[in-house]
């Protein structure tokens, strides 16, 4: 009887000890402000999403890609123009602080950028209202801040994400979001999704080779923002390079992170932030009830 009691005592004590040793490496930060209050969120919600992210237009078919907040921002700010005017006058779609140099502003105000009657949004015969144009103009003049209120860094100062490779094994499923992520003992990030139709995913983030040398001196954090109601759950995960590679991976942990619906990923380097884009028409894929691997 006493022996059995001692055995139970030992098991409970050991469990308490183990639990006390587990420390989450993912750290939730308090939100700085409601994302919905940001200028860019309002522009996205009022203009880009209803008037531009239309089938056959900027819904991933043609750039800029207005399918999500993240894709909109990333394919606008300091993003090189693809379609220029006949004088080749523009370099970027949005140049923070400078509407005249921003082709976005030109496209919504000029009737005849390349041809007559090519003002955007093309579907809106009367064009944007003065109020809507002012909203975009003010955002650009105020520095084209992202939804977190951060000013974009000058282009190419931060390491450029050369590639995010997302592969999936299922032919089904175009929509899927990662809802949970954790690390295994190999340092791999594991993720779970509500999407049932995809067998696995694999994400590699490669840093641009030319910036490798400089990049090695920086500290990297992967930031995950989640939740359907934009309640701004944020987690930061330290990233390190796999030796002799340009591939970043997350640090070792066994902590499970639930970010709700994953909205936004970005990498912070030495206090500066860079946003990265997924290839157009792509979201993260994974499988319900199975852990799948995202290598970082």
């Amino acid at each position, binding site marked *: 009887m006493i022996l059995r009691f001692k055995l139970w005592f030992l098991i409970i004590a050991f469990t308490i000890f183990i639990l006390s040793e587990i420390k989450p490496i993912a750290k939730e930060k308090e939100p700085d402000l409601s994302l919905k209050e940001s200028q860019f969120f309002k522009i996205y919600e009022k203009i880009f999403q209803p008037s531009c992210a239309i089938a056959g237009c900027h819904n991933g078919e043609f750039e800029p890609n207005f399918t999500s907040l993240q894709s909109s921002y990333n394919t606008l700010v300091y993003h090189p123009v*693809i*379609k220029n005017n006949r004088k080749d006058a523009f370099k970027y779609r949005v140049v923070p602080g400078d509407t005249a140099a921003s082709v976005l502003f030109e496209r919504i105000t000029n009737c005849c950028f390349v*041809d007559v009657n090519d003002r955007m949004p093309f579907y809106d*015969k009367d064009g944007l209202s003065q109020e809507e144009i002012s909203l975009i103009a003010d955002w650009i003049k105020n520095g084209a801040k992202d939804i977190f209120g951060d000013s974009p860094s000058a282009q190419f100062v931060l390491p450029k994400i050369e590639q995010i490779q997302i592969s999936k094994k299922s*032919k089904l499923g*175009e929509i899927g979001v990662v809802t949970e992520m954790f690390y295994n003992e190999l340092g791999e990030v594991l993720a779970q999704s509500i999407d049932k139709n995809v067998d696995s995913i694999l994400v590699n983030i490669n840093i641009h080779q030319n910036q490798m040398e400089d990049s090695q001196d920086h500290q990297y954090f992967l930031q995950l923002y989640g939740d359907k109601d934009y309640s701004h759950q944020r987690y930061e995960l330290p990233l390190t390079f796999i030796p002799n590679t340009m591939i970043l991976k997350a640090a070792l942990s066994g902590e499970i992170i639930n970010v709700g619906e994953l909205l936004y990923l970005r990498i912070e380097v030495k206090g500066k932030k860079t946003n990265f884009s997924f290839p157009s028409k792509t979201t993260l894929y994974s499988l319900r009830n199975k852990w799948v691997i995202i290598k970082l």
Partner: protein
Amino acid sequence: MDRRSFIANVTKGIIVPTILPSGILCAKTSERKVKHVVFCLFAGGIRNFESLHKSEGNLMPYMLLGNESISTDITEGIEFVPSPHSNYKQLEKQGTLFKEFRYKSDETIHYSGHAVSITGNYKGNFQIMKPLAVPTVFEMFRKHSGTDSTALKSWWITDQAGPFPYLNHSNHPEYGPLYGANMLHPLSLQSIDLNKLNFFGDETIKNIRAIKEKLGYNASATETLGIINSEEERYKLEAFIYQLSNNIFSKRDYNFWGLGKKANEDIITMYTAAEVLKKFQPELLVVNMQHSDIGHSNFTQMCNNLQKADYALAQLWNTIQSIPSMKDDTVLIAAPEFGRNLNSSTVRDKYGRLSVDHTGDENSQKIFCLILGPDNLVKKGNIINDVVGESIDIVPTIAELLGFRSRVPKQFLHGRVLNEAFN
């Protein structure tokens, strides 16, 4: 709730049992020319330069005579479809080709272009994501055809979601969803596995919405879909959707008329239309293709997609000819919604070719129209080079062929019958 009951409930939200809508069951049908009309919106903005004029070679060898080779500088960017056999009779020889057809509007917005063709009206004040204000050809057909024209007999098959599913009916008070067509957005079937959906418990509502969305409806915009089918027809539809989803779209290497992985969105959409024809033999089916619209950013890819669209149209016609009940009783009409500008734009593709937009210039209003049909009805090898025919003539022509034109109120028919095509 068992599976069958659930599906009955789910589809109730999509397709509701009905009575016959027309109320003109005893109307005369004697003037009807054919039992079936298939209208292919050969859309995406097709410029006559690349199509009829063969400026890059004959990119449409199934429609057009001639073996002009493709421009060598873009050949590498073309995923060639199988060539027609040497004894193949090109579609222009099998029917009437209007080479100077017109879309007489400078509003070259794809949705508006589609709406013009489907309503026969340039001035419908078409707005995206809102129901049409003027009746569609589907509603005219179902209301005035004088037969038991259930929704199963009229189909709108769209290659894109967004506003395009709205084209299956208007909200006109005298027409509306009661007379609308069944709508299918085939590409959405690729991303849904109906068998794997959890049809029970808390996820039911979510899945109803998912099915609606996957069928191409914008669930957030319209909770009531309104298209009417009988209970028996609902089961047929449901079985058909399952068949498509599980037998075709779940197979990664599905053949798609011999194209396999070369099959693009247009091919898949047209292939699905062919499956609908085989399964239901609808009396009126409208299907569109618009992936040549890539020409805004990639000229060579536009040419690539144009030759695939040509192939798809020929395969659709072959399918019609393979269905005994449709073979000699179907007219196929094919026309772009509009063309593209005379001048190139500024985006250069990897082969050095400049993109082409459509912003309503005179050239973007120049298109073609092909009409195929039974020998005793449609003139063969009939090439019309005069500026004859326009987009709004297609609806009256369909109405004439299906025998209900005289019963459509005149304010809804703005064009004329394309009599030049018929014996």
